[in-house]
């Protein structure tokens, strides 16, 4: 008798769980089809690039708050952490397209992570819009990857121009974060232009490498010091770069140190302290010179909420969301393939960090801004036009 009762109980339990499972699933489906459009976000929220991801997500969330609806449906953000890791980035993208069935994807800070997700979004035919991933290979040959920022061929030129024309440098040394596609790519473009401008094949006197996550750069820097370069170009992650500059100054290296857009994080200033004073880098946007009406709206809303100045990548995260929203509106549906077609045609779209027109590769053509660390703050130096370079 006891056994029969037990069996019955088990049966009841199993059937109820089954029913519960069914009913929630049905609800979710109804939600999906009728009133929610999901936009996936994959960004580094933990790990060495966490600050970059957090700043972009700030912008994406702000945009979602201000523009929460499209085609009469609510837009839901599905934010997944890619843990500053290439394998996790691929996993995150797979989860967004397979499980969450998002209409489009935003991400990721760090070109390497975007490149890891590239084949996945292309296979699934879901478009991704990068906010600040600048390596040319992110969008090249991938019909489903777009971005709202300029690319490193341009950024490398901008910094090489600055080094030669503003600083009068004749010899440069390069320090690369060798496991990071962004850093290696940007360093290459810088070297090409630097050699061209100086007309000297041997203008690059030395190249040193380090790995993501390294803390000690004294060995590389001691080797660089002996070469006595006029300028050092060291694009890389903000925390490693800050430690690197600190150690360079401690070793007595006085040459100006230049970098790229990834340096614009508060952590760069905090970790580097006095040592990063004078460091110069190129980036996308400055709150001191609003470019469009959207910039003003973005700045006002951001300052109201966070009571500080936004980073460039926050503005770009904001723009990436709006560009997708605009494409969904134009496509008139949340069908990912139709959204892709609309995205590819994006032209003269007014974003917070400038006007966006996507070229045949899916890259935005934009001006660059040069900033310098002064009195513990990022200060605006100049704007470099994208044309005429």
């Amino acid at each position: 008798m006891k056994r029969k009762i037990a069996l019955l109980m088990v049966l009841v339990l199993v059937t109820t769980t089954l029913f519960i499972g069914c009913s929630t699933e049905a609800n979710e489906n109804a939600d999906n089809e009728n009133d929610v459009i999901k936009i996936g976000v994959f960004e580094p929220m933990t790990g060495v690039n966490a600050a970059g991801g957090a700043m972009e997500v700030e912008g994406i969330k702000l945009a979602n708050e201000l523009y929460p609806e499209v085609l009469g449906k609510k837009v839901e953000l599905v934010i997944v952490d890619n843990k500053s890791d290439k394998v996790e980035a691929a996993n995150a993208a797979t989860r967004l397209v397979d499980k969450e069935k998002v209409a489009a994807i935003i991400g990721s800070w760090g070109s390497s992570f975007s490149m890891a997700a590239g084949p996945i979004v292309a296979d699934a035919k879901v478009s991704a819009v990068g906010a600040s991933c600048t390596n040319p290979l992110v969008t090249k040959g991938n019909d489903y990857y777009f971005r709202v920022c300029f690319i490193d061929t341009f950024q490398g030129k901008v910094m090489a121009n600055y080094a030669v024309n503003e600083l009068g440098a004749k010899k440069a040394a390069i320090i690369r974060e060798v496991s990071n596609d962004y850093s290696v790519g940007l360093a290459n473009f810088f070297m090409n232009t630097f050699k061209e401008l100086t007309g000297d094949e041997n203008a690059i006197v030395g190249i040193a490498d380090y790995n993501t996550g390294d803390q000690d750069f004294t060995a590389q820097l001691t080797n660089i010091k002996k070469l006595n370069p006029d300028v050092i170009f060291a694009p890389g992650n903000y925390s490693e770069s800050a430690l690197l500059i600190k150690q360079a100054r401690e070793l007595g290296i006085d040459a100006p140190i230049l970098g790229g857009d990834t340096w614009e994080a508060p952590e760069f200033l905090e970790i580097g302290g006095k040592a990063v004073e004078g460091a110069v880098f190129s980036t996308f946007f400055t709150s001191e010179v609003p470019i469009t009406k959207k910039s003003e709206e973005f700045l006002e809303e951001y300052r109201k909420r966070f009571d500080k100045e936004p980073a460039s990548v926050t503005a770009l995260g904001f723009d990436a969301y709006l560009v997708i929203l605009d494409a969904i509106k134009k496509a008139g549906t949340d069908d990912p393939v139709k959204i892709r077609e609309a995205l590819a045609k994006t032209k003269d779209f007014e974003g917070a960090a400038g006007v966006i027109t996507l070229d045949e590769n899916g890259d935005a053509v934009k001006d660059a801004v040069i900033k310098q660390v002064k009195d513990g703050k990022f200060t605006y130096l100049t704007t470099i036009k994208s044309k005429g370079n």
Partner: protein
Amino acid sequence: MGMSNFLQQLANGISLGSLYALLAIGYTMVYGILRLINFAHGDIFMVGTYIAFYSMTSFLLPWWLSFLIAMILTCIFGIIVEKAAYKPLRNSPRISVMISAIGASFLIENLAIVLFGGRPKAFPIPDMFNKVVKIGNVSIVSVNFYIPIITGILLLILLYVVNNTKTGMAMRAVSKDYEAARLMGIDVNKIVSFTFGIGSVLAAMGGIMWGLKFPNLVPLMGLMPGLKCFIAAVVGGIGDIRGAVLGGFILGLGEIMIVAFLPSLTGYRDAFAFILLIVILLLKPAGLMGKNLTEKV
């Protein structure tokens, strides 16, 4: 390569090596007594650094008080980890304790991500640790002088405690045989807790020195140093305190010299530690200073 350049690289290597040595002592200490590879050591190191960070930035305490508080709290934290993750498994096979150690390590890391956030924090550096000292053409930051001094002092204290005190005698007895030690009237649990406490204080001290040298705190900061110091301890002969110091210096100098003289191999810097581990295990499994003991049956 000029002489001054070589001396600078040597200084770089010694300062990195002494930091590894400091961390490896704590590792080897726990192993020597408990025959347990404490995989959570790197995470206790991380917790210690964060405690020092928060006492300085949130509670605005002077640095020496913050460091003291960090050491005391980390000591308590280490004992709690031992009581929760290792004590219940005292009579289980060693492999279970090791798995429990890995679990504890993951738990602490993920809790730290939730509590402290994933974004890096900048460790404040008091001026006395941040001065650049020039000797000829060689520049050295002052913290690099303090690290070997602290390592040396701790080494002497530890050697004294282990070899010349009653508690030390009890520790050595426990390391040989739990049961026999218990029969001799030694409170095994107390000795184990004491060992863990000391190991955690060493981890906190190492973490603080790490923060002063590399002021970049992230919740996973203990991972790589933890692994490297484990290797340093094994290379020197795990369980041997002087061996750990030797292993730390070999590792630090080796890493710097690889990058300095073979720049094309920079990408394999971390691999150097693991290759060294394999070579030592093949040629001298007991480590450089270790004694070859015959296994008890």
